[in-house]
């Protein structure tokens, strides 16, 4: 078949474009797609690896913190023993603060994911200074008491308070 120069150039250009298009479609694009996927997967893996490394690097700090908490929020042998300990401690704090105890009783027990929570209702009366001392003592107790609710009311020139005080107990079965 005879082809002139122009036809030959057109033919060559067509072949070149076809080769380039084929290269792009069959080689370059799949390669780039794969590279993109691999890049994303690699980035995710590297990020996860870095996160895990950061977590494990803090293991000692977390374990120390947990041991410290565990030492203070320890569980007793029984719920009853726990409640007794709480009531005695609160009574002692109130007496030390000069607050007159009107009520100091167990209210309820709750079982949460990692620990138990015991609640005591306390009612007392005193002046502002006594009550302030009592609140300070409860908040900073070694037994890690926490006040959940507090109601104050002036009655006969005395400040009557009603508090719900809770304490956490870590169960042995969730020991890490």
């Amino acid at each position, binding site marked *: 078949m005879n082809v002139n120069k122009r036809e030959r150039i057109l033919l060559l250009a067509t072949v070149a474009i076809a080769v380039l298009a084929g*290269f792009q479609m069959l080689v370059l694009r799949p390669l780039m797609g794969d590279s993109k996927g691999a890049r994303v*997967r690699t980035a995710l893996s590297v990020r996860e690896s870095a996160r895990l490394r950061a977590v494990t690097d803090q*293991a000692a700090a977390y*374990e120390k913190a947990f041991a410290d908490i565990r030492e203070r929020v320890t569980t007793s042998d029984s719920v009853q023993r726990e409640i007794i300990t709480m009531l005695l401690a609160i009574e002692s704090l109130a007496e030390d603060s000069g607050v007159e105890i009107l009520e100091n009783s167990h209210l309820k027990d709750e079982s949460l994911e990692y620990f138990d929570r015991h609640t005591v209702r306390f009612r007392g009366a005193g002046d502002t200074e006594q009550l302030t001392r009592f609140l300070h003592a409860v908040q900073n107790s070694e037994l*890690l008491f926490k006040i959940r609710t507090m109601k104050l009311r002036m009655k006969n020139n005395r400040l009557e308070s009603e508090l719900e005080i809770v304490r956490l107990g870590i169960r042995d079965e969730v020991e890490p």
Partner: protein
Amino acid sequence: MIVFARDAGAEGWRALALRERRGQWQVALSATGSNAEELAKFSAGAAAALGSEAASRVVLLLRRSDYSVLRLILPQATGDEVRAMLAYRLGSMLPLDLEDSAWMWERAPEADGPLAPPAPTQVVDVAWTSLKRVESQVAFCRQAGLDVRAVLPTLLVVRAGLAQPEEEHRLLLLDGRNAEWLEWAQSVAVPAPDGQSASPGMLPPPAGRARPQSEVAKILTETRDEEGGPIEVWPVAEERLVDGARAGHGPARPVPWSEAVRNAFPGLTQAGSEDAADLPLALAGWRWAETPTAGMLPAALVSNRQSESRQRLLIQVAILALLLLLLVAGNGAVYRKSLERQRDDSQTQIARLSGRAKSVEAVRERIEAINEQLEYEIPPLEVLAALQETLRANDRELEGLFLDSLNWEEGGQTVIEGHSLNDITPWRFAEALNAKGTLRVVGSPRLQFRQYGDTRSIRFTMTLLPAKARSQQTP
């Protein structure tokens, strides 16, 4: 068909060699016959062609009964001019490899001595429809035992080892039949007088006279191709290339090559133009010198070489582009491999660390859960202290304001109730609380007015929240 015009007086002349000595160009020529009339004609023609009649000089080097070798000295002509003249006058190109043959430049010791005559130059005009085919045709010619001396876009000059140098054949080879040119050459050649057939691969030795062009064209016209189709033949427009002498208008003069082509193909106005594309012989790509002194051969060769150079450049660019693409693909593959290797390393680390990290995260979750239980949004003691300090710090503005009750909840919300002697004081109290920055009053104080005889009591209620959210605490 483009052919070289032949000078009327130079029938049977050949250019054997060309050299320059002390600024003078010298040509070694062979000629059939030896009479003074032919020499004079050629000398005059050559001088006229170069415009240096007075300075031209002819030296007879060898004379035999049937041919002569002479040297033409052209002191005022340039090499290109001499080449153009020879091509134009003799219809042949110089056998370039003979330029340094010393024997041609010296007078023979004996006029009829054993000195062998120079090898004849066989001129074959080949019309190519495609310049690209010249290279393959040259290879073919060489394979066939022919010594290719020069290539023009439409002219292939070969030197065949013929026994007799006098004859020359012009062969029209047309598109698509180039590969068969030798066979055609044998078919159109005049058989030798002794009945010998042409040796294979060589043009047959001519005898007598060459067949006239019309006869050659007739043979070609009657020749059938392999498929039985006619072979197209275009007439040789030799007459039209020669200005003057053959037309009877005086002595021949050199016609510029471009003009000669235009004479042969009146429709041709510009190489590569639409007109040229319509010519029977495709002349696309043909560039000729506009002046005869520039020389047809150099221009043609340059054109051919440029074409080859462009082809090579295109091929190199294509190879380079291909290599570049392969490089890109290779780099992409290597990059992908490195990513996969990196990911594998990360996965290994993840597998190694995940157990330990899971345990640590469990501890952290427990710590956070316990802290969540133990920490206050705002401790009740802090709320109480903030209220007392505010009252103390603004005792004059807040005179007559008393707090009756306080309800604090774990989330930090505090509701206080009290009473005052006027309705401005609760607003001042709220403003003072906000200004202190520990608590903020939600909305505005809610006031209730009660009248006890002449005394009016104003009770108020305020809802307080911590001014700042508690920050997360982690070990």
